[in-house]
């Protein structure tokens, strides 16, 4: 049997190694907000024939007085154009100009967000994450209510595991943003919130087993019970994650372009969530107990 509780420091170290690089790039400003969060225009252009060069497209935009446009080649022979906020008339004019130059089959998807609205979207995202976290602590505390105050210990351990998973995903996208200019949008926020839900889902299953085994084996020390509970739920955690990973991989490989980053964020989060529920969450509860025991021991020793 694996000693997943005894070796907790090893697992904490692995988590640290996963999170630290991401945090570094987060601080370097790697997380790039998309136009939804900073305002502006995104034109997503698909061409009927082969893709023109970036400078050709930049030329068309410059002729419209949009010299500031950032033009980038994207997957699937598309080109993405980012500019400041455009009026619907401007968008129509740009579409017509692109069609004249590159053929009438040129398709332009447009998305314009005014900066005043993007602030509101950011607020909503932050609010929903904060609100979800609070509700989840309460849910876990309630689910483990017959532990008395120790219930909050489980709740907080679950939250730390959840933050771990959020940090992994945010870090990954900070790195992707730093090197590949990958932007985050409201779908990304959705992915993070879904990961939070999944992470807690996984952790609850393990905690529920600990609760049951503690009840079935009164008087048993906490660590062996935790270790045994993790072993019992390990297969389930891995298999469930695998099935979700299968569906997400399919989405990542075969879904539309706009789904790629969403699927990737979820994939990273689910894998991290499985890891943290097996190797972190319960270990935090165990560590808490050990620290408490040590404090109590010292107190009785000095008395």
């Amino acid at each position, binding site marked *: 049997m694996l000693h997943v509780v005894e070796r907790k420091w090893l697992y904490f170290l692995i988590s640290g190694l996963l999170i630290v690089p991401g945090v570094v790039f987060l601080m370097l400003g790697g997380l790039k907000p998309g136009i939804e969060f900073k305002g502006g225009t995104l034109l997503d252009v698909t061409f009927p024939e082969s893709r023109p060069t970036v400078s050709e497209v930049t030329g068309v935009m410059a002729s419209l007085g949009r010299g500031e446009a950032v033009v980038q080649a994207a997957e699937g022979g598309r080109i993405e154009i980012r500019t400041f906020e455009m009026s619907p008339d401007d968008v129509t004019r740009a579409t017509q100009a692109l069609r004249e130059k590159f053929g009438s089959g040129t398709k332009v998807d447009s998305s314009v967000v005014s900066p005043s609205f993007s602030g509101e979207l950011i607020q909503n995202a932050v609010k929903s994450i904060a609100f979800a976290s609070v509700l989840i602590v309460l849910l876990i505390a309630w689910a483990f209510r017959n532990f008395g105050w120790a219930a909050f210990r489980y709740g907080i351990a679950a939250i730390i595991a959840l933050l771990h998973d959020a940090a992994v995903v945010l870090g990954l996208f900070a790195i992707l943003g730093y090197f590949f200019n990958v932007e985050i949008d409201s779908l990304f926020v959705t992915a993070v919130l879904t990961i939070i839900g999944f992470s807690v889902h996984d952790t609850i299953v393990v905690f529920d087993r600990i609760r049951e085994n503690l009840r079935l084996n009164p008087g048993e020390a906490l660590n062996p019970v935790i270790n045994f509970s993790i072993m019992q739920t390990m297969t389930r955690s891995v298999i469930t994650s695998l099935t979700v990973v299968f569906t997400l991989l399919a989405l990542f490989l075969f879904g539309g372009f*706009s789904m790629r980053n969403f699927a990737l964020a979820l994939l990273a989060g689910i894998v991290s969530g499985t890891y943290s529920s097996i190797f972190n969450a319960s270990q935090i509860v165990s560590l808490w107990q050990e620290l408490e025991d040590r404090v109590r021991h010292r107190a009785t020793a000095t008395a």
Partner: protein
Amino acid sequence: MGRLGPWLIAIIAVLAIFVDIPKHQLSFPFNCPGVCFNLGDIKVNQEIKTHLGLDLQGGTQLILRMQTEKLPPGVTTPQSALQTQAIKVIDRRINGLGVSEPVIQGLGEDKILVQLPGVADLQQANDVVTRQAFLEIKVPDKDHPGQYKSLEPPLTGANLKPTFVTFQNGTKPVVNFEFGSPDDQRWIQLSKDYYQQPVQILLDGKEISAPTINAIFTSGSGIIEGNFTTQSAKQLSLLLNSGALPVPLEVIQSSRVEPTLGQESVRRSLVAGAIGLLLVAFFMIAYYRLPGVIAVIALLYYTALTYAIFRLVPVTLTLAGVAGFILSIGMAVDANVLTFERLKEELRAGKSLRAAVEAGRVRAFPSILYSNLATILTAGILFWFGTGTVKGFALTLAIGVAVSFFTAVIVTQMLLRGAIEITSLRRRRLYGVEERAAEGREGRAPAPVVS
């Protein structure tokens, strides 16, 4: 549950499949696009179809903000009333365009969401939705020659009868209007007061024309000439007929998706979903054997039922919504995995099949309940705070999790209990554990192995 349970579950399955099938292929009752029946005076004729979001079927979306700061001082209409009024006006205008299934709804206190499926002309959408269409007639100002002034009180388009377009000399489009009472009397009076003088016709504060009055009017009618094309004349007529917006609107978010690109996304997502489902089915059967087969049946049941609910509610499916749906398949599998892992454990602990199935159900239940509650909570928060895409994702995820709870807890259990009653399906190897050497040793709870 008792004996009725299996029947009920079977009936739900048949209904779900009936709802799922596109009605142009299987029409029952005949020539009905969905549910049609007459019960005395009650006539139901409800079309059932999959509602696709703008990102999947193409179209234009605008989010408008009411510029209340631009209202003239003294307007005291509350914001909520302005919003309701503006929505009504936009609704009338869009109906006049003949867009099918538009969405026009309030967003927060000061915003309006407009979705126009199939409309790819962003500029036209913008014109129709944001032009205030405030018509006013001004008269020459005696104190300032060459300028015009408002009447007291202003003569506006608030009281217009329906306008229409005719062609002058057979070619030049003009918009015909007629004032309703009492403005028609003021219009006649105006023609007397300003005979042989020009009057100014303004729309949204801009002059469209300034015709000279050549006759004393006998009715409240008149025409607006301008450099109209047939289309722009018709659009102006539509705007005037729909009434003026009570407040200027500005576009704060707009997006347009070309219809064919949306279809490509649908195709790709469907392929991805099908591949994902196949992989999961293959894996479950390989790993869990007979229970795996049961899980796959429950999964198909789950897919059919969820899709039926999407069509019935109806839930508008967006790309994110499809992702939520695919993701909830994972949750549906999880509940089965939890149950089967318990079942295996109980069997290994020496329980009989029947006792193990029962114990597996009882002991897996709290985990399934709390973990699903956590996901539903998250989905609820996403729905509450989210806009557009996020809302769609949250709704499909929540429905998916709720249905998966039903299928995993009730349908899977029923199938399992049914399977163990069939003698040829009672071999323990089918459940992924070794055949036991001797019978007996019933009911020992698994004890932790402490090392």
